[in-house]
């Protein structure tokens, strides 16, 4: 029989190690011989003291212990083993077997006993049973350790899970098969505590059921449909926030319904951006269709032929100007998008605003002359900034051309550039139609234009000032407006001066 397999199926990974403690040499030798032949590793000790030392130093599976020994006797060895080595199987060798001794040794933790004298077969049997016991003890110990490790893992896992759940900004709710809430993270508690701040140290285990109507609806859908893996909904709260709620069914291996996990994500910001985007697209669409509608209408009238020469001329000129404006609008839109996305390739150089303004004023004078509008320029002190000259030109061309466009015939435009310490301020004043207060508030918004009978004939994209504002902001500058309806407006740009 191989000791590795044993008769009862017990098996050891290594050769079983046995210690024999007896002061009788013949017993020691006999045991060693019989047991070594069985394939076990055998160590012998002639007295209790050395035997106990060996037991402590090496790992043994089984100890054969004589009760009567010099040094530490068998009873004391049993006591020490019970306290320190509970898994090592002890078998008592005794010369005067009595019921009392047997009971006492078993009480002290001995597994069995073998009375002297014994035959080799009796020894083999008692050792075999002892080793089976040892094997059981080892398996039990392994199981116990595994179980403890598993529980430890489980606790760790659970606390890890809770930490993750607590850290999540998304709300998580878990309901069992009866629709009762069994778990929620702090963000989730807000959905069941009517917004009361939960104690963050609370173990997020709660009781109750899903009462929120829309969430309960999701849970119900999953409960009632065994094939439904998940469903979602968008929830709008009373304080105008938007949430995406996703419910996922939890099922066991056989598909049995266990419960549902609900995750709620705040998507208000995304919705806000979407809203702004779609408002912008609507505006662009409107702004592109308006000139198209005008041009289409004029062309239809002209093709119809029922228009006299003078009117026809006027219509063609209007078509031309609307198409130009359309072109300008597309350029402005592209500019705006370039500024917004930060893809403008700038060339920052020292710019003399006096020179740049002078050039712009010269160019705009042509547009003013037709309507008797005078443009004056006054540059006081060194007005130098560091900027991309093209952008500076764009800012002031926009402001000065607006001052001309929204002026009255025979009006004036005054451009004043001044140096104040480390800043340069440039004001553009007109004597035009001016603006009401609410128009002043919105004047830098995309597509905002003052629209009334006075401005109806002025073409513009509604993007010029939005671009101006963004450009000025990008140079850490500032733009202010003052306006009196019927009297005129003043736009004042302040830019950091070039350090000397």
């Amino acid at each position, binding site marked *: 029989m191989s000791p590795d397999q044993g008769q009862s199926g017990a098996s050891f990974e290594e050769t079983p190690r046995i210690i024999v403690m007896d002061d009788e040499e013949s017993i020691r030798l006999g045991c060693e011989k019989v047991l070594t032949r069985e394939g076990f590793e055998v160590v012998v000790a002639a007295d209790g003291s050395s035997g106990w030392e060996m037991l402590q130093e090496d790992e043994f599976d089984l100890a054969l212990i004589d009760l009567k020994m010099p040094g530490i006797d068998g009873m004391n060895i049993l006591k020490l083993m019970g306290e320190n080595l509970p898994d090592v199987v002890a078998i008592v060798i005794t010369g005067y077997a009595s019921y009392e001794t047997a009971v006492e040794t078993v009480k002290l933790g001995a597994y069995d006993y073998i009375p002297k004298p014994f035959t080799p077969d009796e020894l083999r049997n008692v050792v075999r049973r002892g080793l089976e016991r040892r094997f059981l003890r080892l398996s039990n110990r392994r199981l116990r350790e595994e179980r403890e490790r598993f529980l430890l893992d489980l606790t760790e896992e659970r606390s890890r899970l809770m930490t993750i759940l607590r850290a999540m900004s998304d709300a998580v709710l878990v309901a069992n098969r009866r629709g009762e809430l069994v778990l929620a993270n702090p963000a989730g508690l807000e959905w069941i505590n009517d917004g009361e701040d939960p104690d963050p140290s609370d173990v997020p285990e709660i009781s109750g059921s899903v009462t929120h109507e829309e969430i309960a609806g999701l849970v119900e859908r999953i409960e009632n449909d065994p094939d439904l893996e998940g469903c979602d909904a968008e929830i709008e709260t009373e304080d105008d926030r938007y949430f995406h709620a996703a419910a996922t069914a939890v099922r066991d291996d056989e598909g049995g319904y266990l419960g549902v996990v609900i995750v709620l994500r705040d998507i208000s910001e995304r919705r806000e951006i979407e809203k702004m985007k779609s408002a912008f697209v609507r505006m662009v669409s409107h702004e592109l269709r308006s000139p198209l509608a005008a041009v*289409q*209408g004029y062309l239809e009238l002209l093709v119809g032929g029922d228009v006299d020469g003078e009117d026809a001329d006027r219509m063609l000129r209007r078509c031309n100007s609307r198409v130009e404006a359309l072109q300008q609008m597309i350029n402005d839109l592209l500019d705006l998008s370039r500024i917004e996305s930060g893809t403008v390739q700038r060339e920052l150089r020292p710019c003399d605003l006096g020179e740049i303004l002078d050039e712009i004023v010269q160019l705009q004078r042509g547009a003013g002359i037709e309507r008797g509008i005078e443009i004056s320029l006054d540059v006081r002190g060194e007005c130098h900034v560091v900027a991309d000259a093209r952008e500076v030109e764009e800012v002031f061309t926009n402001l000065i051309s607006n001052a001309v466009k929204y002026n009255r015939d025979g009006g004036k435009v005054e451009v004043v550039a001044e140096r104040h310490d480390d800043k340069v301020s440039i004001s553009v004043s007109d004597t035009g139609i001016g603006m009401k207060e609410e128009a002043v508030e919105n004047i830098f918004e995309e597509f905002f234009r003052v629209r*009334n009978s006075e401005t*109806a004939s002025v073409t513009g994209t509604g993007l010029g000032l939005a671009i101006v504002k963004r450009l000025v902001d990008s140079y850490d500058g500032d733009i202010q407006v003052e306006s009196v309806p019927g009297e005129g407006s003043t736009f004042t740009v302040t830019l950091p001066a070039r350090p000397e």
Partner: protein
Amino acid sequence: MKRILLIDDDADFIAVNEKRLTDAGYSVTSAYNGEEGVEKARAQEPDVVVLDVMMTTPDEGFEVARKLRNDARTKHTPIVMLTGINVSEYQLPKALGDYDKDPTWNPVDVFLDKPVTAEKLLNTIAEVVK
């Protein structure tokens, strides 16, 4: 002669439609923004209002429609709304907000997309003034 009020912030578009409608035998008045439009509608009680949606604000046309519907003088005046955007049906009640709900009239009678051909505009107006 049927009287039409045009409310639109685009002077060219108004010029085009004035010509189209005058040639077709209508009497035309124009307003260049919502406020002016509501005033003229109340004063003149036109047979049809042709109204642009986006003027000073994106929803100014809806605001005008709401005001017209809440005024006894213009409660039943047909409104033809011109839009540069596609207004879906669900947006409309939201945009109109609160108004005196009356099942016998529509907040807006007809929507027309900009640009609109003369033929389409004239047919639509002929339809609603009946």
